[in-house]
């Protein structure tokens, strides 16, 4: 935990810096902020609010990603013990990855990685 000390201080420094830049700009800016400017779409005012139920075409990719990503949780600690545990650790991890890659290959064939 002690080693996170500098990181905590750095976080504070970073936040203070951003606040300082904003403060400096408030002091230097040629004019106060405009409020309620129309959103830009090419010059005509928007006819509808852009906030909407946004249909992402890649939602299957997110699901496959989340499943695959879980594995990273195990892989980071795994890197530390390969020398100690030896061949079984390597076999185990890459069998595990092979199973997941088979899942990815399946998803690819089904077109889940495309903008359907």
């Amino acid at each position, binding site marked *: *935990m002690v*080693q*996170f*000390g500098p990181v*905590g201080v750095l976080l504070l420094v970073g936040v203070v810096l951003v606040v300082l830049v904003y403060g400096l700009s408030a002091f230097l800016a040629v004019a106060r902020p405009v409020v309620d400017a129309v959103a830009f779409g090419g010059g005509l005012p928007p006819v509808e*609010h852009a*906030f*909407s*139920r*946004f*249909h*992402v*075409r890649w*939602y*299957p990719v*997110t*699901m*496959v*990603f*989340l*499943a*695959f*990503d*879980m*594995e990273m*949780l*195990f892989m*980071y*600690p*795994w*890197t*530390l*013990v390969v020398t*100690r*545990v030896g061949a*079984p*650790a390597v076999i*185990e*991890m890459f*069998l*595990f990855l092979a*199973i*997941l890659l*088979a*899942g*990815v290959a*399946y*998803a*690819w*064939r*089904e*077109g*889940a*990685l*495309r*903008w*359907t």
Partner: protein
Amino acid sequence: MLADVSFWVLGIVAVLSGFAVFRLNSMARVTFALLASFLAVAGLVVLLGLGYLGVVTALMMVIEMVVMAVFMIMYMMNPAGLMPMSMYHNKAGSMAISVGTFAVLAVGILLTDWPVRRGVPAPAQTYQLGLALMGGQMLTMMTLGVTLFATIVATVVLSTGRGRYDRYGDDLAAPRADDPAGGGVG
């Protein structure tokens, strides 16, 4: 001293932003309030001396909350809370459950007679975690692998409208997939 201050700040942030999840109207803000709560909890885990777990919690939660924001906004009406309408189902009930759980846990924590720590934690926790994961039972990882494989297959089956027969024809003989939008490979 510094640890105490950090603990209280992170704890208060975690609870307040968790509470904000119930108070905000915008799906986007709700999701990121939840993320703020998780990040504060990750900080608390780091404070407990579990560096790897804390950092990896932050890593996973950022990814997952962004994905969750995408889905929340895709399916929930009024995603930005522009209309003054409530998007909650059974708000009172869920609020009662969460506040109640919080109270029970907090009281439990305060009333429990915690044992005094004897000895010191192992110096390299991430290493110990790796040993525990890899230690002897291959079964754990294999079960997990097959479970995740099943998850991938199931989500693909459930979420894609068009399968390989739609793309390559009934005999899967088409040289190129027929998709509404092209892709990078094949």
